[in-house]
């Protein structure tokens, strides 16, 4: 188990490092942002003066070493636009994003788990068909379209919910629905197929033949094994939810890190983009690590591999 953990951890560190290098150089491909911070009539001398003050006239490798050295100490520099610590800005917006992602994940699981089980058990019957149709539809709608339809219907037409902003639970309903649609569909389909597979296996037949209650067979014996691939996907979906939150937050004016990321990219606020990307990489890598560990706990065979 220890060897397993160490290998995984090393992988994780390598991935985060690679992402940091990539974002540093990729974001600089389009030129430095000096001119975009100045009014259109700024003269060339003014642009060069400000560039020098910001340090963007230094050789790129030197700027990179600075970035790396400071990042290792947890210092991602000041936001070029807000003039505040870049990582601080990202972390400040984290609660809003976590709130939204957690709500969406909870909603997804609350729908997907019962639906996945139901469709597997009812395989081929009406409930199954309906469930599959539902998940196909959920998977097919792009988030931005679904989000705008929700706003049109629930805010503009029926005036049930506020179209945007963060505040009470009413503000959370539509963004969570929009964000959850895709994950719900994926998890439902996956859980259904693993359940079907597991339900056909020998040990289930044995369990049934022992005369165990159908509920016990499904929820205790089958679900536990069917859960393994599902947990992988749920783990991946957490990443996807955080990613998908970028668009959802933008449409519902939800003050989370996704919105900050989009603004920072359009504003060419390098330091914030770097802080955001590195933070997301750490987060997603950690979730994957956690999923790996969870596997190992659920399935002893993985541990020994």
């Amino acid at each position, binding site marked *: 188990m220890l060897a397993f953990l160490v290998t995984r951890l090393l992988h994780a560190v390598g991935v985060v490092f690679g992402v940091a290098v990539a974002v540093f150089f990729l974001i600089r491909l*389009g*030129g*430095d*942002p*000096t*001119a*975009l*911070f*100045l*009014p*259109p*009539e*700024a*003269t*060339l001398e*003014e*642009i060069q*003066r*400000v560039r020098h*003050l910001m340090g963007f006239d230094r050789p790129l490798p030197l700027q990179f070493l600075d970035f790396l050295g400071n990042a290792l100490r947890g210092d991602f520099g000041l936001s070029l*636009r*807000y*003039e505040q610590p870049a990582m601080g*800005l990202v972390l*400040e*917006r984290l609660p809003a994003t976590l709130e939204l992602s957690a709500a969406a994940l909870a909603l997804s699981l609350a729908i997907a788990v019962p639906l996945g089980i139901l469709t597997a058990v009812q395989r081929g019957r009406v409930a199954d068909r309906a469930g599959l149709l539902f998940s196909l539809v959920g998977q097919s709608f792009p988030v931005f379209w679904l989000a*705008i339809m929700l*706003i*049109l219907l629930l*805010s*503009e*037409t*029926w*005036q*049930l*919910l*506020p*179209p*945007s*902003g*963060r*505040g*009470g639970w*009413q*503000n959370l309903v539509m963004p969570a629905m929009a964000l959850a649609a895709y994950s719900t569909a994926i998890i439902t389909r996956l859980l259904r197929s693993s359940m079907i597979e597991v339900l056909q296996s020998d040990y289930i037949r044995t369990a049934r033949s022992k005369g165990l209650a159908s509920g016990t067979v499904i929820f205790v014996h089958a679900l536990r094994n069917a859960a393994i691939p599902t947990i992988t996907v749920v783990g991946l979906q957490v990443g996807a939810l955080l990613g998908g939150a970028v668009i959802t937050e*933008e*449409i*519902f*004016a939800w*003050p*989370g890190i996704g*919105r*900050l990321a*989009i*603004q920072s990219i359009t504003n*060419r606020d390098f330091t914030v983009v770097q802080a955001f990307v590195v933070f997301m990489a750490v987060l997603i890598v950690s979730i994957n690590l956690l999923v790996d560990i969870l596997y190992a706990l659920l399935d002893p065979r993985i541990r020994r591999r």
Partner: protein
Amino acid sequence: MKRRDFAPLLGSGLAASMLAPGSRVAAQAQGRTLVIAQQNDALTMDPARHSAFPTANVMFAIYDGLVTMDEKGEFKPALALSWSNPDPTTWRFVLRQGVKFHNGQDFDANAVKFTFDRALNPEFRAPYRSRIAAIRSVQVVDRHTVDFKTAAPFPTMLFSLYEASFAAMIVPPGEAAEKLAATPVGTGPFRFVEWRRDDRVVLEANPDYWGGRPAMDRVIFRPIREPRTRIAELRSGGAHIVADITPEDMPGLQGGSTKVANIASEFLYFFHFDTTRDTPLKDRRVRQAINHAIDVDAIQRALLGGLGQRIATVLPTDAFAYDPAWKPYPYDPARARALLAEAGYADGFTIPLTSRRGRYLKDFEIMEASIGYLRRVGIRVNANYLEPGVWAQVSERKGREGLIFGGWSGRDPDLVWYPLLVTGQYQSYYSNPQLDALLQQGRSTIDPAERRRIYAQAREIIHEDAPFLPMLQPPLLYGLAANLDWAPRTDGMINLRQARFT
């Protein structure tokens, strides 16, 4: 806000038909709270440390400048009561007395000096420093009089001092100035209450405002980037001023609980010709031909629903020295073809177009339509739409080629023609010694009548030599609550001093 409190009640089974009146009641219960939805949040609460219009709109509610611009585009007293030129390189301002900052500090000549000393200090890195850079020094004459000294006569001083010159908003000297980024202290009509980043900036009325207590008790700026969401907020009563709507949104917002405000902005759409490289654009006849080839009126009708303002030269129609008698080149494709033949391009030619896209209202559609018109007279255009960062890079090495659609604004010829046409200027792709001399003269003359005469002459040369194809001032469109009395301005700044519900 109130609607949120109603929502559980509504969700518990009221018929949909009853909801609309419910929310209207809620809107009234809000009292005099005005919610403005614009694309972006403020970046800071320090007026001198940003370069963004949405931020400037928030700052303009909290701070004042020495002068302000009224809805007709004329300069009016704000913190300065009057101004004069004791000599050509001095602008003297007599300040309003008895004005206090929100923290109780007195506004006086020291505050003015402090504001400009701070923003002009290169180390301070005020992004809009270049707009005030001509100011050599600010001298306190007495407690209520200041002199602005310039190296050369500076006729456009007032443009450097009003609210669109961001760094010119007056801040308090001393300790308060250190904390402006988070806790703004101005002399303006609204005081700071709360800033929840990326969510809202909340301000309240300053009851002691020198211009009279504003009609609104509270003002909330909300950043909502998605246009559909902004409109949904307006429709559902969650916002009262919604910036940046499109002509297509207009019909849906006219009538009922919403309306539309429309004004021709001072922004300028035009093609700028690169005459520095060896291309057909070096030939004046070709440039004139292009002016004849594109039907700008038709483009304005078709793409902007006739909104905005056609211009006869690259200058807003209400700019200083603009003469309504000026006429653009008429649309005349036959004449365009004749001029091209005369210049030796009877078979046409191919030319690049350098621009960004999706930056301004319908910019891409207008460029594409123009390309279509040019094709009809034999000019083939290779459009090169650049990413903003790349555009800046390309501009810096003077790499804009062919037809350039960059956009510009400015309500004085010196602010527009000087940087775009004078030989060697960073953004100039043109050289004409005769015009250079006139534009140099215009910027070093204080007397308005004399300046008008100079710019009338300059316009003759510009029209004849055609370094531009002037097109139009695009419209600024706002969605408003039907019961709101508020007027937009050509410069796009949102002034809430007179805003009131009817």
